[in-house]
């Protein structure tokens, strides 16, 4: 058990180091983009004096490394700073959007993950049957259609024609849980279309892979029912790849859903990040990318821990 704890600590330390490197890459990257926030905000109307005045007001006339160090000094004290674009507190800007992003991601995951595992097991069980083929075709079809197409088709039928769900996710702090679920139904279904196929096929493939093993054959010979063989014997050994694909899908749900946010007007982090990059609003970009990078690191760590716990051999690398 101690080995696991040690490994978690080690990974955590590496994660922090990764975050640090990401922060440098993002900062330098945004610095390299042509123009800065003063020019971006003033747009067509930017005259040299305006730009200079705004730069001075925002402290952008200081050298880049000083601004970077200042930013870290703030972060270490728990202060993410204020948005350069609208002078609002970044923590406040992000909390609302992060909670929305997580809510949507968790809702989509709560529907997709059990479905994917169930469909995957059934597909492995009835391999090459009509069921297997059709579930593959349908989920692969869904993942091949661009998200915005799926989203528009859902909107067309379920909100414009039938009126069951709203086409806009008009969410604020006071929206009740049930109401929220109703509002995120269409975006969550759209996202389900994107991630279901990956997870389902990974479950199917890993189980089928195992079904060729000797111990599975043994279980069959014992006369165990097929479904039991899969759930009791095959699945526990398949958790490692499944946990990995779930982690990657979850990370995608948090980080990569800006298109869905735009189509459903869902106030999540994605739109904030996109707008901030085009505005060159460095502190907001930094804060968002730290959250995104952190999400990836944490989820990967979790997937690794799950893999190790379900396969103790991994604790003793040669």
């Amino acid at each position: 058990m101690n080995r696991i704890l040690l490994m978690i600590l080690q990974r955590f330390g590496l994660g922090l180091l990764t975050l640090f490197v990401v922060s440098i890459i993002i900062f330098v990257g945004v610095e390299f983009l042509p123009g800065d926030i003063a020019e971006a905000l003033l747009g067509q109307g930017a005259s040299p004096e305006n730009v200079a005045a705004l730069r001075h007001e925002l402290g952008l006339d200081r050298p880049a490394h000083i601004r970077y160090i200042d930013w870290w000094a703030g972060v270490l004290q728990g202060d993410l700073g204020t948005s350069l674009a609208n002078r609002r507190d970044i923590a406040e800007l992000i909390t609302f959007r992060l909670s929305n992003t997580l809510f949507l991601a968790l809702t989509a995951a709560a529907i997709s993950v059990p479905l994917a595992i169930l469909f995957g097991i059934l597909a492995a069980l009835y391999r090459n049957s009509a069921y297997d083929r059709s579930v593959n075709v349908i989920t692969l079809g869904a993942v091949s259609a661009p998200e915005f197409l799926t989203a528009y088709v859902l909107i067309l039928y379920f909100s414009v024609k039938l009126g069951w769900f709203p086409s806009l996710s008009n969410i604020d702090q006071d929206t009740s849980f049930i109401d929220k679920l109703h509002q995120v139904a269409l975006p969550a279904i759209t996202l389900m279309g994107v991630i279901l196929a990956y997870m389902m096929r990974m479950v199917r493939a890993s189980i089928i892979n195992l079904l060729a093993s000797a111990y599975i054959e043994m279980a069959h010979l014992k006369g165990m029912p097929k479904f039991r063989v899969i759930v009791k014997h095959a699945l526990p050994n398949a958790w490692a790849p499944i946990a990995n694909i779930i982690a990657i899908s979850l990370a995608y749900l948090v980080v990569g859903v800006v298109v869905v946010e735009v189509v459903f007007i869902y106030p999540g982090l994605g739109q904030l990040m996109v707008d901030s990059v085009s505005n060159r609003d460095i502190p907001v970009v930094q804060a968002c990318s730290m959250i995104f990078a952190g999400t990836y690191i944490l989820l990967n760590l979790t997937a690794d821990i799950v893999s190790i716990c379900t396969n103790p051999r991994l604790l003793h690398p040669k």
Partner: protein
Amino acid sequence: MKKSKIEQIIHQDIILKQALSDPRVTRRDFLAFTGAMGMTATMGGALWSNRALAATPKRGGHMVSGLNDANTGDSLDCGLFNATYMICISRAFRDSLVNVGQDNSMEPALAESWEASPDAKVWRFNIRQGVEFHNGKSLTTDDVVASINKHRGEDSTSYAKGVFSGISDVRVDGNTVVVELADGNADAPALFTDYHFNIMPSKDGVAESLSSAGTGPYLLKEYNPGVKTVLERNPNTWHPDGGALADSHEVLAILDDTARQSALISGSVDVINRPALKGIARLKNVKGVNIVDVASNLAFTHPMRMDVTPFDNMDFRTALKLSTPRQEFIDKVLFGYGAIGNDQPLGPGFGSYDADLNVEYDLDKAKHHLKKSGHEGVTIDLSASNTSYGGAMDAAQLFQQHWAKIGVNTNIIQEPQDGYWNNVWNVKPFCTCYWGARPVEDMILSIAYLSSSPWNDTVIKNDRVDELVVAARGELDAAKRKAMYQEVQHIISKEGGTIIPAFGTDVAATRDTVGVGDQIGGGWEMDGGHYLKRWWKA
């Protein structure tokens, strides 16, 4: 639907609209007219009665709008406004000194009245008394002075710095704010209708730009940039009639065209701005949806830098102008929503607009000028992006085909959206661009067409234009000013470096649940940015 059918519908629609907006048309004329067009009497009658029904303003109700042109980086700082969303919000919870009315006249707002010195250099604005900001602070002349000074001086970060640069001094005299101008300007009150100029509370002579306290008819209840804004009626307003019709508003930022449109069709919102013109013929046929459009002075410009070869040659510029397909631009790029332009920036909404000034489409003449310029067979680069205006890429291809007919090869460069206004516009020799409507002629001319203009994107240096613009500014005789502005129009159209194939139309779409007055103000889309106060929930 076949293309010709769509074009026919658009055409029919434009004729109908002209008939409806012509005050001389009576109901009987109208029915006879629609009959002649092959429409049944009931169809025509329905069109008419909808219009009449909608024209009875009603108080109360909750209106939900979906506007694009918003950003999560939006701020309450009115000096940084450049987009419709914030302009409309600010006009609802703050006031200006002067408003542009729905008939485009100057209406008093926080300035009860004003008078000018005979040379139009000194203007005295009498400030309304007994007005309170939403935070309970009383409006003082100091607040007004601070709100003006926000846009002046070296440290100003305001986008409107150029607009206010003609002000040499601002001072208080009792309940009056005295504004002194360096040169006379008969249109000075119009400066104070600018959307950047809202009256804010001040502290120690500095305007509190980020304060949510205004004097407007609505209170800013919730403000989440790039997401949504909630406005509620201000019970303590100075407006004698409340200043607004709906009791409350929810304004959502919906950037995606399809999302905005489906929100309107499904009834999630009552009104949207800028429905995608590509699908408007179909949107119009949706039950319960109305299209609201108003001619605008927005100009689709294509500036050529007149200090770069071959654009430095007037014959070459003339050749391009004569071979630019204007009607086709309106039909294919603007889907009928525009008015023919004549290569000068003053649109049909201005009193001085010279409707007789036309730039014809004449390939023979164009070839003649091209030959004279000595640039036959030349290849030019046109930097284009749909950031400059929707459809700019299509327009570039349309121009390419027509200019090829006279022997000018056009190389279209699709420029990235990101940084377009910094790296392309005013930098590249020839690009696509637009200029938003301004309330008075002087604003657009001084900002882009004087040799000293900060954003002279065509590098025009014409002594006569410089002289006329300054003279017209101080000219109080309306007829003389009109003549001056018309001369400017002729010079720029003939000699200038921009191709303006059309002026735009501001388009919005509403559900039947929304009433819109007979007249819609110009100056900016959405009733000059005042729609939250002026439109009502039927």
